[in-house]
C-alpha cells in the first residue's frame, strides 16, 4: 500500500495535466465541428499533399541532422576527453549554443542570414565578397533551405549530444582502453572494439533523445522562413491548430499531433530494435 501512496501525487498530477489533455485531444481529433464521430480529419490530412511534403522534409532533416550531430559531437567528446591543455575552456565555449533559447537562436541566425544581415557584412568587411555579390542565404531552393536548417539545428544541439557522450566516456575507466593498447590495439581499433561498444547505452540514450526532438523541429524553421515555406510535421500542427483560426483546422491540428506522437514513438521503438537494445535486456533477464 505504501508504495502506491508514495507515487500517488505523481499519478494524480499526470492524470490532470497530461493524461486528460492527451485523451481529450485524441477524442476531439475523431469528431467534427458538429461533434459527430468521424475520421474525416484524418482523411483530410492523408489527402493533403503538404502532409507528405512535411513528412519527407522531417524525415530528411531527422536523418541528416542526427547523423551529423552524432558524428561531430562524438568527435568533440573524444577530443575533450583527452584532457588536453585548455580542454575545460574549450568545453565551456562549446556549450554556449546550448544555453541559448530557440527563439534567440532563430533571431540570431535570421538576422545573420538576411541579405543585409551580419554574416554578409562580416564577409564584406573582410573582403571575401562585395556589395554586388551578397549571398542570398535564405532565398535558395528547397535543398539549400533544408541544409541551412540542418546546419543551424546541428550548431544548437551538438553541445547537448556532446555532453551526454562525454559523461558516458568519462564513466569508462581509462584502464580498459590502456589494456586495449597493451594487447595490440591501434587507436582506431580501441575506439571501434572497446570504447564504442562500452559506450553503447549512452549512445542509445543520446540518439533517442535527439531523434525525438529532431522530429519535433519547427520553431527555428518558422523564425527563418515563416509558415508553409518548408513544411515539417510540427510546424503544420502549429499552423493548423493555432494560426488558421477556424475550428475545422484546429481539429486537423489535433489529428496531426496524434499522428506526430505515433511517429515519434514508432521511431524510438524502431531505433531501439535496430540498435539491439532490446535484445540485451532480454539476455540479462535470463
Amino acid at each position, binding site marked *: 500500500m505504501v508504495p502506491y501512496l508514495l507515487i500517488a501525487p505523481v499519478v494524480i498530477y499526470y492524470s490532470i495535466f497530461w493524461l486528460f489533455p492527451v485523451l481529450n485531444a485524441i477524442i476531439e481529433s475523431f469528431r467534427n465541428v458538429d461533434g459527430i464521430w468521424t475520421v474525416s480529419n484524418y482523411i483530410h490530412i492523408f489527402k493533403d499533399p503538404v502532409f507528405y511534403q512535411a513528412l519527407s522534409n522531417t524525415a530528411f532533416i531527422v536523418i541528416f541532422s542526427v547523423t551529423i550531430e552524432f558524428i561531430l559531437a562524438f568527435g568533440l567528446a573524444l577530443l575533450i576527453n583527452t584532457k588536453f591543455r585548455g580542454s575545460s575552456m574549450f568545453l565551456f565555449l562549446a556549450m554556449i549554443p546550448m544555453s541559448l533559447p530557440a527563439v534567440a537562436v532563430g533571431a540570431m541566425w535570421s538576422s545573420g542570414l538576411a541579405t543585409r544581415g551580419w554574416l554578409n557584412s562580416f564577409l564584406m568587411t573582410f573582403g571575401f565578397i562585395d556589395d554586388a555579390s551578397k549571398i542570398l542565404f535564405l532565398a535558395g531552393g528547397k535543398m539549400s533551405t533544408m541544409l541551412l536548417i540542418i546546419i543551424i539545428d546541428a550548431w544548437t544541439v551538438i553541445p547537448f549530444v556532446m555532453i551526454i557522450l562525454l559523461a558516458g566516456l568519462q564513466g569508462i575507466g581509462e*584502464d580498459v582502453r*590502456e589494456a586495449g*593498447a597493451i594487447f*595490440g*590495439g*591501434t587507436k582506431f581499433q580501441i575506439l571501434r572494439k572497446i570504447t564504442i561498444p562500452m559506450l553503447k547505452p549512452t549512445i542509445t540514450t543520446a540518439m533517442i533523445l535527439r531523434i525525438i526532438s529532431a522530429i519535433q523541429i519547427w520553431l527555428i524553421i518558422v523564425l527563418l522562413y515563416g509558415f508553409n515555406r518548408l513544411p515539417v510535421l510540427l510546424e503544420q500542427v502549429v499552423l493548423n491548430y493555432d494560426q488558421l483560426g477556424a475550428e475545422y483546422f484546429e481539429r486537423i491540428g489535433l489529428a496531426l499531433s496524434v499522428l506526430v506522437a505515433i511517429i515519434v514513438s514508432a521511431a524510438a521503438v524502431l531505433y531501439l530494435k535496430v540498435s539491439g537494445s532490446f535484445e540485451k535486456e532480454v539476455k540479462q533477464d535470463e
Partner: protein
Amino acid sequence: MATLELIDIAKRFTKKVWGVKKMDLKVEDKEFIVLLGPSGCGKTTTMRMVAGLEEVTRGTILLDGKDITDIPPRDRGISMVFQNYAIWPHMTVYENIAFSLKLKKMSAAEIKERVEETAAMVKIGELLKRLPGQLSGGQQQRVALARALAVRPKLFLMDEPLSNLDAKLRVTMRTELKAIHQQTNATSIFVTHDQSEAMSMADRIVIMKDGEIVQIGTPDDVYFRSANMFVAGFIGTPPSNFFNVECEYTKENISLKHSHFTLEIDSMKFQELGKYRGKEIVLGVRPEDLLIVPESKAVFTAEVLVVEPQGSHQVVAINLKEIIVKMVVSAETKVKPGDKIGLGFNIKRIHFFDSKTENRIVFKGGV
C-alpha cells in the same frame, strides 16, 4: 624470454613533481622482480613507463637489448595485469582472452587452442562463454591473468593484481602466480605495497621510496641486510625495532647506552663502530631477535603492554615510555599484559644504523 634494462629513467609530472627521480635496474631473463614501496613511491609509474602507457621524461628502456623507449605499447612484446582487472565487460571471457590473438591475425584454430590452454592453466576453462559481469572478483582476476598469459609475452607486468581480492584468496593466488611463473618462466615485474607479498614471490625485490630505489636484493638481503632504516622499518611483520643508543668505547667492550638499558658488545666483532665513539647511533632489532630470558641474564626488564596471538606465534608489545617495542615469541610462551619480563638480544642478528644518514653500518666480520 627476455632481459629488461632501465637506464637512468625518470618521470616528471609537473614542474616540481617527479614520479620517478632516477632509476637504474637490470632484470635478468626469467627473473621475478617485485617493485615494493609505500604509495606514491613511483613503483606503478615505473611499470607504466615500461609498458609504454606513460612517456619517459628521461632515460632509456631496453628489452632484450632493443631500445623500446619510444615505441607504442602494442609493439613492445609485453603484457600486463591491471589492478582493477580492466577486462572488457562487453566481451565474453573467450573474447577477452582472444582479443590480442585476433589482432595478431592468428588462425581461428590456433586461437581456440591457445585460449583453451591458457584458460585451463588459470582454472577458468568452464567460464569461457560467460560475460565478466557474471563472474566473481577472483574469477575476473583469473580472466585478466589468462588474457595476459595468452600473448606469451617477453615481459609480464603485474600492477598490484591481488590488492582487490580478499585476504584468503590473495594468499592462494600468490602461490598460483608463483607456480605459473615457474611453469612459463616469463620475465616478470610485479608491483605491490604489501611487503609479505613481495617477500613470498620475488626473486629480487626493488624497494622504492620517493621516486628512487632504496635497495635491490633477494628477500633475504632486504630482510637480514636492510640497507637503511627505511627498509628495516618497512620489511617484516612487525617491522624492526629501533633504539637510539650512545656508543661508548672501552678497551674490551663497546657499551651501548639507552635510556632503559646498557648493552655490552664485543669490540673486536664490531670494530667499525670505532668512529662512532661517543656518538649516538641506532640499534635495529627484528621482533624475533628480542628474546625473553630469565631476569638474571636479562639486559633489561619491562612490562608487557599487549599480547596479539597469531596462532603459529604471538606478537608481544612492550611499552618503553617513548616507544612501543614489538617482539615475536612462540605460541607456547605464557605471557599476559602487565607481566614483568626479562629481555635479551640475539647479538648475532642485531643491526646498526648511522643516526644521521640512516644507512646501515656494515661490518667486515659479517652480520
